[in-house]
Structure formats: structure tokens, C-alpha cells
């Protein structure tokens, strides 16, 4: 009886969550496409400003540039991160596991903004240092969670799979990765959310992103620009986080969510 009650409650909570997510996505799209329509509002809020609407670039372009930065760097981090995590959990690379784990842990204490700044002498200004900094930084949570996720697979499960005559490759694909997937996705989620934030600061090293109007507003003392950039990037982060939460839940097994 309690099972039925709980599943009904969960279903209600999930559908309420769906509503919120849908609303936020709609708001994100509407603001990205229709920020210009809000010009009278910003004019009323900031009567002292000559240009209360950022117009050097369209918000759609900035949004796409921002998503592009995060997408490219996240693809790099996920590919390398999962490969590295797999390497150090196989017999060939097990010796490297403690080193890679502590590297991932220590690297995450580095402030993302400082990593971005250090990429500049290596790669100059613009798109390249931002991609380098985002990919390197995003790598760490992915590696960490890949190792942790594969570590949670019980030894008995692996033995059962071996006993069934599965090859190593089959065990990895059909047993280990599916069981570890939720933790790996949690790592990707952390990595993507940090990268959305760091890409915003990327505009200080010359990469176009939603940070461009934000920083331009801070430098030029134009609060309207700041709010326009901050609203969009904040919404983008929240929507992305909620989407990942959904994805994580899909990979939870045994009702433990």
C-alpha cells in the first residue's frame, strides 16, 4: 500500500518538476529571442542609461556561442575523461589509478578563473585558451566519477558475469558501464555546470559568450547589460542542471534515487 502511495507521490512530484522545467526552457528561449522586446522595460528601470539594451550582437548569437564553447569543451573532457577512467581501472593501467585520482582531486582545488588566466600565455587570447581551460578543468570531475562509478560495481556481479562466460569487453559494455553510468553522468553534470560558469568569464580573455554583455556592462557601468547577460546565463545553467538531473534519474537502478 505504501508502495502505491509513494509511486503516486513520486509521479506527482515528477510531473510538477516537468512543468517547472518546461516553463524554464520556454522562458530561456523567449528571452534569448525576444530580449529586444523588453527594451521599454529596461528603459523604465534604468532611465539614466543611453543604451539600455545590449545591441553589439544578438542574444541568439551569444547564446549559441556560449553553448558551442561548453559543448566542444565538454565533448573533449568527456571523451578523454572516460577513456582515462577506463584505462586506470583495467589491469594494464591500475598502477596509475592512485596518481590519476589524486591529480583529479588536487586539480579541482585550482580556481577555474585562475586556470583560464594561465591558459592565456599558452594559447593567446580568444576561443583557444577558453576551450583549453574548460576542457582541462572539465576533465577532472569526469575522471573522478568514472573511477568512482566503476568502483561501485560489486565484485560478486563481476564474478557472476565472468561465470556466465562473458568476455572482458562484454562485461564492460553490458555490466560495468550501465551500472556506473549514473555516477559518470553526475560527474559530467558537475563538469558542464562549472564550464557554463567559466565560459562566462571566458569573455575576459576574448571568447564570445553570454559573459560578453555581462562584462561589458560591468566595465562600462551599464547595469542593464549586466542583468541581460546574467539572466540568460543563469537560466541556461539551471535548465542544463535540471536536464542532467533527469538523465541521472533515468540511469538509477533498484529504486535507489
Amino acid at each position, binding site marked *: 500500500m505504501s508502495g502505491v502511495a509513494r509511486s503516486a507521490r513520486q509521479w506527482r512530484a515528477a510531473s510538477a518538476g516537468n512543468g517547472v522545467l518546461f516553463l524554464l526552457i520556454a522562458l530561456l528561449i523567449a528571452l534569448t529571442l525576444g530580449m529586444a522586446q523588453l527594451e521599454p522595460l529596461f528603459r523604465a528601470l534604468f532611465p539614466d542609461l543611453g543604451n539600455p539594451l545590449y545591441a553589439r550582437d544578438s542574444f541568439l548569437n551569444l547564446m549559441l556561442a556560449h553553448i558551442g564553447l561548453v559543448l566542444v569543451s565538454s565533448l573533449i573532457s568527456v571523451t578523454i575523461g572516460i577513456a582515462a577512467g577506463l584505462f586506470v581501472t583495467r589491469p594494464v593501467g591500475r598502477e596509475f589509478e592512485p596518481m590519476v585520482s589524486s591529480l583529479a582531486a588536487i586539480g579541482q582545488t585550482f580556481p577555474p578563473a585562475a586556470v583560464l588566466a594561465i591558459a592565456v600565455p599558452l594559447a593567446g587570447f580568444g576561443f583557444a585558451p577558453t576551450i583549453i581551460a574548460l576542457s582541462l578543468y572539465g576533465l577532472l570531475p569526469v575522471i573522478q566519477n568514472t573511477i568512482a562509478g566503476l568502483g561501485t560495481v560489486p565484485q560478486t556481479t563481476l564474478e557472476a558475469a565472468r561465470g556466465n562466460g562473458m568476455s572482458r569487453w562484454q562485461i564492460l559494455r553490458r555490466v560495468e558501464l550501465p551500472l556506473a553510468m549514473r555516477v559518470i553522468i553526475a560527474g559530467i553534470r558537475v563538469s558542464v555546470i562549472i564550464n557554463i560558469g567559466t565560459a562566462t568569464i571566458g569573455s575576459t580573455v576574448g571568447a564570445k559568450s553570454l559573459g560578453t554583455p555581462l562584462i561589458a556592462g560591468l566595465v562600462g557601468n551599464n547595469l542593464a547589460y549586466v542583468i541581460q547577460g546574467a539572466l540568460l546565463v*543563469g537560466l541556461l545553467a539551471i535548465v542544463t542542471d535540471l536536464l542532467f538531473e533527469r538523465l541521472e534519474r533515468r540511469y538509477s537502478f533498484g529504486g535507489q534515487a
Partner: protein
Amino acid sequence: MALPERRRWFGNRVLATLLIAAVASAVLLPFASLSPNRLVSGQPVMLWQALAGWQLATFALIGLLLLIAALAGPLPRRLALWLSLGATLPLLALDFQALGAYAHGALANASPAARVSQGATFWILLFVSALIAIDALQRLRLGPAGRALYGVAALAVIGVCFSGELLSPVSIMREFANQRDNFIDQLVRHLLLVGGALLPALLVGLPLGLLANRRARLRNGLFSVLNVFQTLPSIAVFGLLIAPLSALGRAVPWLGELGVSGIGVAPAIIALVLYSLLPIVRNTYAGLAGVSTGALEAARGMGMTTRQILWRVEIPLALPVILSGLRIVTVQAIGLVVVAALIGAGGFGAFIFQGLGQYAIDLVLLGAIPTIVLAVIADFALQILVSLSRPSGTR
């Protein structure tokens, strides 16, 4: 199924890999760069061009010792590990010494505007020594005391390198000399901002964590609200706080006189507190939830009151987890203060963004490197605090 027995050349393949990386970088990448002034990028200088004979010989000797330590045959395992751990200290010292000595030599007959900067190989050698040390410390299974001792020794070596005139001609150190007073100011400001945010965050977060532990119904809502702040990009939160705070500062004059305004310290501290709450609340909750019912029942059986149980049983047992939360938050705050420089709060971020604006790379590094060092030291110190707070017997 038995794997075919293969002869292993290397007893420590991690060390071998690090050695190969170091040698490859020394051959392929510049050790330093020489430029006519601080804003132009310089000519690359390779390791063998920069070094005197005895320095190269010492590098080769350290490399040879490390190679012997990595090989499977010659040395007993623990001796090899102690050797590689010990070799990192002279490697570190030589890396700094070589850069300083090269800078002294190269700038002796150059124009006063000329600059020597560290190159990729310098950084990689530094990085490789750190990784060799980490690997050796892990394999030797040294406890917190041994690790702390090594950390102090490494810091002492670095301190000696920086104490004299050795590194003063290197470009970033000249930038430091120009900014010395300002540097100390920004360091103090950085630390004050971190401290000023952590104190209120702890004062609010610890009771909230207790509340989350006692009232299950509040928990989910509280965690999801706090999670939203962790999700938002820091610069967006700083930016969104400007308008309401400047309005508040104008509307309530005594607040304005206290320094509450749209830019500067007030929005920085508020944003940092909001970011810090989730880890503190979550870890306080998790720490308290992890206290075993056995311990609680024993305490109740001894006739302790609820208050006594909280202070004498629950909090001491939860302390390691709570302090881990403090560790996360401290490191995070040190990084976020960098971004707060964009809203005029100061700190090391001021150097970074000023340097980026002027394309003065050394100024950027003068902000970025101390921030990283600060974060790593804070992390290391709090890690030791966490392990000391564990009840004895479970360390």
C-alpha cells in the same frame, strides 16, 4: 587462466612515464624565454642553451637516480621509493636555480627593459617533481605527519629559492617587486573576503544542517533551493546582486555609509555566503546522520540530556564530515573571490583582470599563481585538520 609471464622492465611504471614526459619536454619545449620588453612575447630558450655544464650534469644525475628507482631490478622497493621522494627536492631546487642563474646571465648585458620568463619545460619539471612526490608518498603509505613533513621540506626549499636575489631578475618577480605593497594589500583583501564570507556561512549553515537533520520535511526543499545557487555562474550572481544592493544602499543611508553598495565588498560577500551554504549544510546534515544509533542509545542510556548528546556525542562524531564541508567551501571561496574582482572587490583577481586588459602576461600570472598556491595550501591544511579530527583509532 594464467597470463603468460612477461619480464617487467620497470618496477614503477608511473615514475617511468613521468621521467619520459620530463625528458620529452626538455628536448622539445623551451625552458625560458627572452624578450625585449614586458609586453612582447619572447624568443624561446631551450634547456641546454640556458644551462651551465654543472647544472646539466646535475639534472642528468638526478634523472639517472630516478631511472634506477623506476627500474624493477636494482633497488629494494621501499628504498627506491625513498630515493625518488628524496630526489624531488634537489630537482625542485635545481629547476628554480637554473631559471634564476640563466636570468642573471642573460640580462647582465641586455637593456633594462629586457625580460626573462619561465617556459613550458620549467613548469613541466616543477609539475613532474610534484607528481613523483605524490606517487612516492602514496606508495610509501605515509600518514598525515609524514606528508606534512614532506610538504614543509618542499616549502622550505621553495622558500630558500625565493628568499635571496636568485629569482629577482625573472620577469614575474620584477612585476612582483613593482607591485610589492599592492600585492600584500590584495593578499590581505583576498583572505579577508574569504574569511568574511565563511564566518557568516558557518553561523547560518551549521544550524541549518542541524535543522535538516532534525526535520526531514524541510530537507529536500532546503537542499534544492541551495543547489540552485551552486548551479548559477558566480559572475551572474555577482551581477544580479548589483542592482538591488545599490538601491538598498541609496534607500537606507546608514547601510550605504557602512559600505553597502552595488559594487565592491557587499555583493561579493553575499554571493560567497550563498555559494558556501550548500556544502556546509549538506555536510553538517550528512555528518549528523552518520552518527550510529548505537552511540546515541549508549549516550541516552548513560542519562545524557539531548543537549549533552548533541555537544558531546553527535558533534564530535560528525566533526570530520563537517570539516570536509569547510574544506570544500574554503577552496571554492578562494576561487570565487578571483571573479569578485570584476565587481571591484579586489583580491588577486584584480591583477588577473588588469593584466588581461593590458596584455601583460606576467601580471596575469602574478594574480593566478598565488591564488592557486593559496587554494592548494588551504586544501592541504584542512585535509590534515580533517584527519586529525577523526576519533583516534579510526584514522
